[in-house]
Each structure stands twice: as structure tokens, then as C-alpha cells.
């Protein structure tokens, strides 16, 4: 009797640990697959510019058909990455995501504003502030992060303005 009680306790504890580990791992695994796809298409710290989402597009679940996306797979292991975008007309925004899909930074950009971001791991904000005085410094929780630029396409037949706005996005190493 005692041995079966002990075994039942072990199974329940193990099942609980497996359950929590898999729930925790889901975002990491999904973002990992996404990051591999981006790395395989345009590489790291480079802007990937997919076409307007369509039923053939399975890069991410539930894409917005009204948005043109700009995507950068950012690697801060070798130094701080600089991101710039805008100004652009219409609704657009930049958002930074951690390796587990946490939205660590977002800006609902004003139509006439240029956005300049520095994403780094080390405390290099002081030295970079002199080089990029207008930039907002963001501490990256992990070496890998993902930038998602969203540019509104009010009419899918006429995406030209959003394409031009998206072309302003740059991701580049600072050192």
C-alpha cells in the first residue's frame, strides 16, 4: 500500500512538472521556429519584408490582412542594434518582442515622427547616447529579440503608401 501511495505521488509530481514545463516552453518553441525561418530567409539584423498576409502565408498565426509587416530578427550578442523607422503617414507602429514573445517595447508612432531605438544587453547606453542622442535605449532581456513593424494598408489594392513607409525601417549593428 505504501509503495503504491509513493508511486502515485511521484507520478502526480512528475505530471505537474511536465505540465508546467510544457506550458512555459510553448512561447519559446514557437518563437524559436519563427526565428529560424527569418534567419533562413533574410538573416540576422536585416529587415524582412513579407507581402501582405494572405491564406497562403503561414509565417505567424492570425496575421492581420490590413497590415504590412516589417520583421527583424535581432541579435545583440555582438553588440547593440540600432533600429530606425519613419516618418510615415497613416497608422504604423514598432514593437519589440523578447525571445518568449513578451512585448518589451512598443511605440504607436505619430505620423510625422521618426523613431530611433537602441537595443542592447550590456550597459552601453552611456557611450551610445553621445553617438545617437535622439535614440531610446532598451535593455534586451535575452540575446535574441524580434522587431515587428506594422504599417496600415487601408485598401489592399493600393498598398503603395504602406510599402514606402515600411521601406524606412532599418535594423543595423552599431559596432
Amino acid at each position, binding site marked *: 500500500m505504501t509503495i503504491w501511495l509513493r*508511486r502515485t505521488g*511521484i*507520478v*502526480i509530481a*512528475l*505530471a*505537474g*512538472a*511536465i*505540465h*508546467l*514545463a*510544457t*506550458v*512555459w516552453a*510553448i*512561447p519559446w518553441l*514557437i*518563437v524559436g521556429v*519563427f526565428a529560424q525561418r527569418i534567419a533562413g530567409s533574410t538573416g540576422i539584423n536585416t529587415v524582412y519584408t513579407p507581402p501582405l*498576409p*494572405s*491564406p*497562403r*502565408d*503561414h509565417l*505567424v*498565426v*492570425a*496575421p*492581420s*490582412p*490590413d497590415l504590412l509587416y516589417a520583421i527583424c530578427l535581432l541579435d545583440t550578442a555582438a553588440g547593440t542594434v540600432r533600429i530606425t523607422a519613419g516618418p510615415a503617414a497613416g*497608422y504604423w*507602429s514598432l*514593437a519589440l*518582442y*523578447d525571445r*518568449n*514573445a*513578451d*512585448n*518589451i517595447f*512598443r511605440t*504607436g508612432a505619430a505620423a510625422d515622427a521618426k523613431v530611433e531605438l537602441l537595443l542592447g544587453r550590456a550597459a552601453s547606453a552611456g557611450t551610445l547616447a553621445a553617438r545617437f542622442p535622439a535614440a531610446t535605449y532598451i535593455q534586451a532581456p535575452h540575446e535574441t529579440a*524580434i522587431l*515587428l513593424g506594422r504599417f*496600415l494598408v*487601408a*485598401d*489592399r489594392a493600393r498598398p503603395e503608401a504602406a510599402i514606402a513607409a515600411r521601406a524606412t525601417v532599418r535594423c543595423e549593428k552599431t559596432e
Partner: protein
Amino acid sequence: MIRRPLTDAAMLALALLLGLGATWLTVIRSDPGTPSGAWRLLAGAGSTEAGLYTKARVALFGLFALERSEAIYFTALQDTAGHRLRARCAYEISGIAPAARWWSITAYGADQFLIANPSERYSYNMGNLDIAADGRFSLVAGGPARPGTWLPAGDGDGAFNLMLRVYQPGAAIAADPARMPMPAIRPLGACA
């Protein structure tokens, strides 16, 4: 001599079954979000403060969601009466336009991807819907093709869902998204 390894293997297998089954039930099978009319609010989407389960559900059903000061996401898997949305049925979606910089309603298949259709119509938004002076709007989703503001939901009898995105919501909605007046989703014709 081989009883002990067999027992250990059986215990491990049972633990895996229970652990993964619990994940399937709590993350994949459970309805995402908090109920708000026919819709469910993906509360905590994009937030670094969100719990394990919210983060897992958002990764599965709305990867790279924005934090709620920038965007709020509502999904509808059922109509206002609580019945699963089916592609063969037509639904009237009517309500009051949310106070926001931009909003849209998109149809997705059960696989969470856009639904192929000849007119390449995947969503309606505040820019292409007729919105009355009092803020009211309506459209039809699903069922056979029809003229006017019709959002295709695919052929056959497959399930589909709707997502209402509200970008840069007004202060009242951002403060308490659950209090936003949600559009009703009513079945039409034979499905009513």
C-alpha cells in the same frame, strides 16, 4: 529483475500522458480569454506581466500581440446564443464602432489562418464599413456569397472565428476593455 524498470517506465509514461494532457486541456482546448458578450478578450496579451497560461495561449492563437495600450484583441468562436460559428451559416455582426485610432474585424479558419476566397476579402475595418452618424455598423460573415458587406468564412461546414482588433484604443477602453460595447453576432436564415 526487469519488473522495476518496467514499473518506472510505466510511471514515466503515465506522468507524460497526464502532464501533456493537462497542457492540452488548459492551453489548447480551453477558450482563450475572458468572456465579453459573444467575444473573448485576450487579456494580458503581449504583457510581460502575463501568466504562463496567457503567454502560452497568446503564442498559439495570436503570436506577437501588442500590449493593451497599443492594441486590444477580442476573438469570437461562438455567436451571441453560444453556438459555434460555422462557415455554412451567415451571421450578422452589428454594433457600435469602438473609439480607437483603427479597428478591424477579420475571419480566420479553425487553423487560425486567413480563409481563401475568390474575392480576397479577409476583413472589414473602420475605413471600408458604412458607419452611421450614431456610430452603428453592421456586416454579414459566413454563409453563401452575397452582395454588400460580406465577409467570407470558407466553404463547407468548417468552424471559423472572428478577431476584433482595436488599435490605440480610447482611454476608457484601454482602462477597462471588458466594458467596451461588443458587436452582437446573430445567425441569419436557416441557422437562426
